[in-house]
């Protein structure tokens, strides 16, 4: 591959901005190289050179990629690329990305302008959730008592009890997920829901207008207050709109 050749011309691409919105990026790029702006017809791609030889991404490069996006996002509307986007040459960046996809990119910038991404995760407190479910479900409470009295002998009863709890937890998760999404959707422009892990009621990215940030935060605050102590909500952002870039470009 070109990336491992010593005469590599490969360029790492972070994203695209309007050229007049971002004069330069100070943050260090992937592999510790400086970030440059490749311009064509009022659009600019944020890129950095990959070192020749056996280049391999490292954990620190994840932070560097994010730092570049965040710096650009602080000054301009950026259409971010996924981590690890590497293109053969400057020519390809200019002709294929900035040239052929110019209209798409301009439309995406317009759609993302003035908007930020907020990543929301609502996690159950295991103990509080199970306590509540046992209260709401007498059958579950009865089975728990019966299983407990069997001790180690009740291996299959344990599995049966666990299966039942898993089902009740999953059902509760679906209901809560819909409700949380509905409560927050009114203050957001768009939302992308991701598969939730164990004891996660909702994991989603929201696209929020900067002017409505306070409103969104108020909605979150009320939600967190109402759902405590069974749930704890974490919110990260404002972030560059990575989860919405592809859709904004119509791809």
């Amino acid at each position, binding site marked *: 591959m070109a990336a491992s050749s010593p005469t590599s011309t490969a360029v790492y691409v972070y994203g695209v901005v309007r050229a007049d919105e971002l004069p330069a990026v100070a943050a260090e790029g992937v592999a510790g190289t400086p970030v440059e702006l490749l311009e064509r017809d009022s659009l600019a791609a944020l890129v950095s050179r990959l070192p020749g030889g056996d280049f391999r991404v490292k954990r620190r490069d994840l932070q560097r990629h994010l730092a570049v996006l965040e710096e650009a996002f602080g000054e301009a509307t950026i259409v971010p690329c996924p981590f690890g986007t590497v293109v053969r040459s400057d020519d390809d960046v200019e002709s294929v990305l900035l040239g052929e996809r110019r209209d798409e990119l301009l439309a995406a910038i317009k759609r993302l302008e003035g908007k930020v991404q907020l990543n929301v995760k609502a996690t159950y407190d295991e103990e509080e959730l199970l306590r509540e479910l046992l209260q709401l479900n007498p059958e579950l409470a009865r089975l728990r008592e019966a299983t407990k009295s069997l001790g180690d002998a009740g291996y299959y009863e344990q599995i049966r009890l666990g299966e039942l709890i898993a089902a009740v937890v999953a059902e509760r998760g679906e209901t809560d997920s819909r409700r949380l999404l509905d409560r927050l959707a009114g203050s957001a422009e768009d939302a992308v829901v991701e598969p939730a892990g164990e004891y996660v009621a909702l994991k989603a990215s929201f696209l929020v207008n900067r002017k409505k940030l306070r409103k969104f935060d108020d909605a979150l605050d009320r939600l967190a*207050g109402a759902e*405590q102590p069974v749930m704890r909500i974490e919110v990260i952002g404002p972030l560059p709109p990575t989860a919405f870039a592809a859709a904004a470009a119509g791809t």
Partner: protein
Amino acid sequence: MAVATRGTASNYLQRAPSPSGLADVLDVILDKGLVIDAYVRVSVIGIEVLTIDARIVIASVDTYLRFAEAVNRLDLSQTETAGIEELRDGGSAAKRKSEGAIEGAKEKIPGLKSDKERSR
């Protein structure tokens, strides 16, 4: 991690301006963003290795046993001594409280759309 908190629900709402943990960073930048046409792309060594941490797989007997253990571990003495009547009252009070908050949210956000409207 810089976490700003405010309001009465601060313990249950954590705000961070930027992701700090590996999983949160991956959530933001992995497989998300504008995809460039494959024929001009070059693959980079090591990306797969970095993504392993981000994926979680569950659903097995082990999981069921863990659920059962968790529920057995639960110390119900506190609620058991509280008495059933009190529990019932506590439960419905909590429900009333959350319903009130939800109605409040509706009132304050006139633009609240249903799922159907949003997906249009």
